[in-house]
């Protein structure tokens, strides 16, 4: 079974975020980056499916040169090869533009299964996988917590609200968006890191894909959220702040 996993490189969680001078994105120069969290789970799921059913795992990533690091990590964890759609200006694109690039790179691969994360930590659109499936004309399902392959079909467990779930069966090829927590992540081994250096990374440009990531939606401005609620911040060292909080809970909230 041939599985393609879409991984995005995003700023490390808890990065200090500052708005760029353009006002239209964040200042990226002083940040570190990592694989988007649900994408790491999607990769792990692909690796486990390969271990069970055989085949190949191909990682695909659209991003600037720095994204090569995320690709190396995916290869070190066990992906067999990778496709890097390299461009420095993808931040100006939108999900349809990115999905068109991914579709262009994935289509010639003819995979049986495409896994994406359910949502990116930075843009948080939660839709690139769904759009990719539409562009490729294949079925999809979202927020997936379990994947069973049986012959030419898959049965997946889809998460619903409030602790509900649902099983769905659909024919392959298909696209699934994977939820964090579906499995336990592995670490790259030293051997894996060594091997990654010998694995194939195919670099493609926008011209190769013959796709213009023209945006139908544009981010006009990025800014810190306006505060609407008056939070009482209790100042002082840990002791003092804790004592003040207990006083508030006792005399204002009246719960102690």
């Amino acid at each position: 079974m041939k599985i393609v996993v879409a991984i995005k490189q995003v700023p490390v969680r808890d990065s200090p975020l500052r708005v760029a001078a353009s006002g239209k994105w964040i200042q990226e120069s002083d940040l570190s980056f990592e694989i988007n969290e649900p994408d790491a789970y999607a990769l792990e799921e692909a690796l486990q499916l390969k271990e069970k059913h055989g085949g190949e795992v191909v990682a695909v990533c659209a991003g600037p040169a720095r994204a090569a690091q995320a690709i190396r990590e995916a290869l070190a964890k066990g992906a067999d090869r990778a496709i890097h759609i390299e461009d420095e200006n993808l931040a100006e694109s939108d999900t349809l533009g990115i999905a068109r690039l991914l579709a262009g790179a994935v289509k010639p691969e003819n995979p049986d299964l495409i896994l994406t994360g359910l949502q990116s930590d930075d843009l948080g659109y939660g839709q690139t996988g769904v759009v990719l499936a539409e562009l490729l004309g294949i079925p999809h399902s979202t927020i997936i917590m379990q994947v069973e392959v049986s012959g030419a079909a898959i049965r997946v467990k889809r998460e619903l609200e409030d602790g509900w779930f649902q099983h769905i069966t659909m024919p392959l090829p298909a696209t699934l968006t994977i939820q964090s927590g579906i499995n336990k992540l592995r670490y790259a081994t030293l051997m894996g890191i060594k091997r990654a250096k010998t694995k194939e990374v195919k670099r493609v440009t926008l011209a190769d894909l013959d796709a213009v990531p023209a945006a139908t939606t544009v981010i006009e401005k990025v800014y810190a959220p306006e505060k609407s609620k008056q939070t009482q911040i209790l100042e002082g060292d840990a002791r003092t702040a804790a004592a003040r909080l207990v006083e508030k809970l006792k005399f204002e909230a009246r719960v102690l």
Partner: protein
Amino acid sequence: MSILAVLEQQGGVWNRMSWETLAAGQQIGAAQGTPVEAAVIGHRIGALAAEAATKKVAKVHAVEHELLEAYTADGFTAALEALVRKRAPTLVLFPHTYQVRDFAPKLAARLGTVLISDVIAVRSGPLWVRQLFQGKLNCDVRAGGPCSFVSLQAGAWRADSLEAGSAEVEKFTPALDASMIRQKPELPFRESARAVDLTAAELIVSVGRGIREKENIPVVEELAKALGAELAASRPICDAGWLPMERQVGSSGQTVAPKVYFAIGISGAIQHLVGMKGAKTIVAINKDANAPIFEVADYGIVGDLFEVVPALVEEVKKAKS
């Protein structure tokens, strides 16, 4: 020019967020001078459509077909594509539910555009306000093209501002056949009866990824014990198995409304907030003064939880003795 508000029901029961979406449609429509129509999708939905028609809308479309009885992405996309092509609205609004996440991006893509998802407000333009980086920043998005597709975050518009009225219901039967629908859904289920019912708890101490590792859980357990509170957690803590799933608060966990909710080392992503916004008093302890959790907190301490929580345990014990 018209606005189409897509309402959500499941097995004849409304998703409450539908009314927020319709209220948003009414407000945006009033500001633009644009009529608002509503759509209900399913099978045997006459009563629901009639109920929607008691709101102030220009028309209610009852999109009915036996193949729409159970939700599928393929079926709902095809049905709404047909309705949107027929009515040619300039704006289609959805509640940002799990179901909408599953099909609305596909619908928008089929019509050559992008769903502007999880919107929290609108400014004149229109510019749609949405969150980036799990609520740490906001952005204004401008849509291009003849029709915009927008899904609205839970709680961003208030259902209680919904205006009443009286509208006509128009039945719309999309041309569907079974071969178009590739997903075969089974009945929804719950994993098991919940051993822990957090909904009845008066005090909840909830812990997030700021706790760093499983071995540190006793730090917050101590506080829960001192307060006589239930222990709860954000999703990553339960995903990692540091606390059982049944203690998870949020959109995919429990919805709680205690007297006091202590959010400790929790950033305040919307999927967590929807599960605890109803608490009477919210206390946040976080080392990042800009964490979105402070947006909903009544009291906050900006600091290292490993210093603040033990100090708090001492103070609580003192106050109780």
